[in-house]
């Protein structure tokens, strides 16, 4: 804002930049007669603060910095702004500021990162203030025009009323004047009990285009004169590209260029992607696979198993009492070893990005969960400064954590940089996407529980061995080498706290980092920690001869919120009454992303190997529920994602490469395998938790515990397909 730029030039530059995908917002500066600068949107309508644009026809444009990827945050965030703004919801539309615009304005829209179930909870405060600020300014502008005190005016559904006289005006009519006012220094937010729009399951704002084929995903971006690229990166992580024989594909139809991408990959650029992919498959490539080519799932498993040995070093994440002494002096102990594999995000839309590089500008169009991280990748790969770069976010065909990474953005820019002036759309084949994921980390866990003579649990030792995500992706977040996130769901305190009190407790992590790159996969470390802990809780209950629910309850007295969701699920599934004939139940609870969740499943099992899931009940306490319809969908979707991984998932390593290549070897649940999920929302208020991820933690253990109830057999290894167990 304090930069002296020509408004017209600035606006035109942004309009050109965003025209290719038909959307986006333009920023123009308007410096009238001294007062505060008015910032204008593409169509000339004024901003009333950074979050709200009001058009003369009363349409309200709400800016959304976080990414929509199907989870519904775009609608939820708009609800939060609109609640405070008191605007007409039927006239609300949204737009994404670009990261470049945000950086140019001192990050006025805050963090763009959309992961860790943070979309709403980490921005609810300032976006609500954005709505409230705009409301105060609009009311003030109306009051000024009537020459009455603002305190005599109220606003509802975009209409401002001067209460004593009954005069009215609308937001659209006073927007120009409001935009010229100095924003109030502080605004008071509504008490949640007064919310009218927040808490309602209103329809999403972005549905219609998804039903007609008109929604633009990254794969659909069209830029004039664009070419298409297909890429192959060394299938062994850490390996390099040695050589390729370009002459062999020289005459192939549509091929324009073959380019090296960094030290590890080669791409074919062609008129169409189909031509690029066909030529790439025909291209002889020699890889320098390096030492990692010796690594296999077996060698990784062996290495991790060594970490379960108490003599090996480990980081302590949660501890009280003296576990070793308590176990040594116990009347009885129970021990089990579990493991959880690598998982691929397998978003429906494979990774892709479109880049246009010229000597003085680099623009990228892509689906991303983190516009600012993508922007940083563009700067780095292009070598251009921030003011010459931008990222235009389009709808991602799924994220689940994968699109928080920027490898595909960087590649697109590296290719485009070798063809200045030509827009390049880089699309990964599904096979490339399976081979170059950022995989859910691999772990094993050895648990030991000890009882006194009266069957009270006196000690619990939880020893995790395996990969750290932060070690690979955010080493600066390690604490003296320890990955605090490794203890998600079993942590001492915080947003993923352990829900049980055990007099002697030791939870530790022997970090082992294989060469396969890990990533944040929906639910992240909650996934395996919840399986290990909740299945072992069931083992302990069984060993103590107690009901799994009652056994847990006795350990949860100091964890009332954990207990409340567990009780809610137990009540809804009817735990106190017997299940139908031939049907068996399992239950689980965990805390993650600031929310408390529990799940219960009813299943039947045929021949010990065919599972039919009849019912799933899930409860959540995220503090506040902004849009119950969308929360319900996130809960149900978490079960589909979590159970797909349990039954069909698992990425294995052979010769240093991932073996699974497509949905035939990395399958996903279909409609016939998935029952209706009955969700119970018990928001207790006073805190803001996330909803996109925590529920996935209870999906697998609820079903695994039900399987034990049905068969008496304990499954301690994922995926089930390895044990020839599948859906009925």
């Amino acid at each position, binding site marked *: 804002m304090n930069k002296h730029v020509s408004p017209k030039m600035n606006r035109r530059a942004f309009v050109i930049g965003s025209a290719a995908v038909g959307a986006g917002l333009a920023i123009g500066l308007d410096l009238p007669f001294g007062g505060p600068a008015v910032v204008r949107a593409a169509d000339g309508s004024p901003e009333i603060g950074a979050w709200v644009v009001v058009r003369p026809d009363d349409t309200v444009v709400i800016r959304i910095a976080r990414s929509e990827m199907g989870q519904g945050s775009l609608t939820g965030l708009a609800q939060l702004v609109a609640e405070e703004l008191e605007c007409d919801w039927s006239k609300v539309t949204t737009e994404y500021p670009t990261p470049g615009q945000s950086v140019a304005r001192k990050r006025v829209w805050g963090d763009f990162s959309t992961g860790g179930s943070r979309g709403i909870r980490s921005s609810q405060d300032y976006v609500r203030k954005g709505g409230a600020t705009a409301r105060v300014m609009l009311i003030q502008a109306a009051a000024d025009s009537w020459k009455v005190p603002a305190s005599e005016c109220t606003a509802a559904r975009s209409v401002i009323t001067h209460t004593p006289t009954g005069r009215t005006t609308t937001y659209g009519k006073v927007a120009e004047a409001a935009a010229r006012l100095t924003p109030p220094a502080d605004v008071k937010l509504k008490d949640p009990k007064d919310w009218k729009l927040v808490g309602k399951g209103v329809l999403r704002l972005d*549905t219609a285009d*998804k039903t007609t*084929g008109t929604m633009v*995903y990254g794969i659909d971006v069209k830029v004039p004169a664009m070419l298409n690229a297909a890429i192959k990166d060394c299938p062994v992580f850490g390996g390099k590209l040695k050589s390729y024989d370009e002459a062999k594909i020289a005459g192939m139809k549509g091929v324009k260029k073959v380019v090296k991408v960094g030290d590890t990959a080669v791409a074919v650029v062609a008129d*169409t992607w189909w031509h690029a992919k066909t030529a790439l498959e025909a291209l002889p490539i020699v890889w320098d696979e390096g030492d990692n080519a010796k690594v296999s799932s077996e060698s990784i498993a062996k290495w991790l198993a060594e970490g379960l040995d108490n003599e090996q070093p480990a980081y302590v994440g949660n501890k009280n009492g003296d576990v070793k002494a308590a176990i040594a002096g116990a009347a009885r102990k129970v021990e089990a070893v579990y493991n959880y594999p690598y998982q691929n995000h397998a978003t429906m839309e494979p990774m892709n990005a479109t880049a246009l590089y010229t000597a003085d500008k680099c623009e990228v169009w892509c689906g991303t969960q983190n516009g600012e991280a993508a922007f940083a990748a563009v700067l780095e790969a292009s070598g251009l400064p921030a003011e010459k770069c931008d990222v235009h976010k389009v709808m991602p065909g*799924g994220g689940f954590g994968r699109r928080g990474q920027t490898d595909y953005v960087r590649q697109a820019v590296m290719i485009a940089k070798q063809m200045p002036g030509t827009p390049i759309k880089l699309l990964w084949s599904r096979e490339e996407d399976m081979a170059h994921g950022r995989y859910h980390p691999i772990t094993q866990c050895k648990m030991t529980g000890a009882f006194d003579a009266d069957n009270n649990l006196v000690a619990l030792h939880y020893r995790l061995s395996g990969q750290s995500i932060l070690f690979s992706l955010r080493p600066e977040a390690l604490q003296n080498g320890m990955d605090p996130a490794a203890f998600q769901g079993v942590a001492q305190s915080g947003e993923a706290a352990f829900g049980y009190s055990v007099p002697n407790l030791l939870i530790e992590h022997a970090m082992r980092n294989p060469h396969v790159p890990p990533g944040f996969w929906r639910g992240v470390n909650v996934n395996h920690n919840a399986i290990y802990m909740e299945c072992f809780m069931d083992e302990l209950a069984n060993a103590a001869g107690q009901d799994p629910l009652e056994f847990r309850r006795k350990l949860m007295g100091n964890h009332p919120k954990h207990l409340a969701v567990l009780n809610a699920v137990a009540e809804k599934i009817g735990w106190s009454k017997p299940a139908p004939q031939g049907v068996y139940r399992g239950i689980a609870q965990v805390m993650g992303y600031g929310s408390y969740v529990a799940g219960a499943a009813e299943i039947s099992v045929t021949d010990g190997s065919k599972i039919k899931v009849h019912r799933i009940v899930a409860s959540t306490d995220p503090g506040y529920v902004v849009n119950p319809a969308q929360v319900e969908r996130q809960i*149900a979707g*978490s079960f*589909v994602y979590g159970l797909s991984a349990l039954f069909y998932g698992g990425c294995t390593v052979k010769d240093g490469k991932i073996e699974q290549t497509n949905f035939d070897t990395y399958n996903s649940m279909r*409609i016939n395998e998935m029952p209706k999920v009955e969700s119970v929302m018990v928001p207790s208020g006073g805190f803001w938790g996330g909803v996109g991820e925590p529920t996935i933690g209870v999906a697998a253990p609820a079903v695994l515990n039900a399987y034990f109830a049905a068969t008496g057999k304990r499954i301690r290894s994922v995926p089930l397909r390895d044990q020839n167990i599948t859906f009925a």
Partner: protein
Amino acid sequence: MANLTINGKTFTLDVEPDTPLLWAIRENAGLTGTKYGCGIAQCGACTVHIDGVATRSCGVSVAEAEGKKITTIEGLASGKTLHKVQEAWIAKDVPQCGYCQSGMIMAVAALLSEKPKPTDADIDEAITNICRCGTFQQVREAIHTIASA
């Protein structure tokens, strides 16, 4: 060159006969509503109607599709009047990321034209598309809503 009849229009496309129909639709005809998900006819994101039958267009060549009536998601509505499946999808807020939904909607439209009142078992058998977001219960609910209208 190939002549394809898509959504009632004839497209003369510079495309090899062995090109998968999916890519001819997306890249040569420029209709990007039909999505690429796997390329091996597993996920259903590329489902179109060929002579009224729901078909995974990544597994059909241009040569095989010539002379047949192809309908994509863009051709499902009648002018500005949405197909009843699209209407139900909006009313029931079915899509999450939406990427699989073009294929899902085409599969459901074909099912309903064959069986206007499908049972749950009919749905289980006919709808085999992958949705990684997990919209299945909204899909099922929306189908039943259409069937009972």
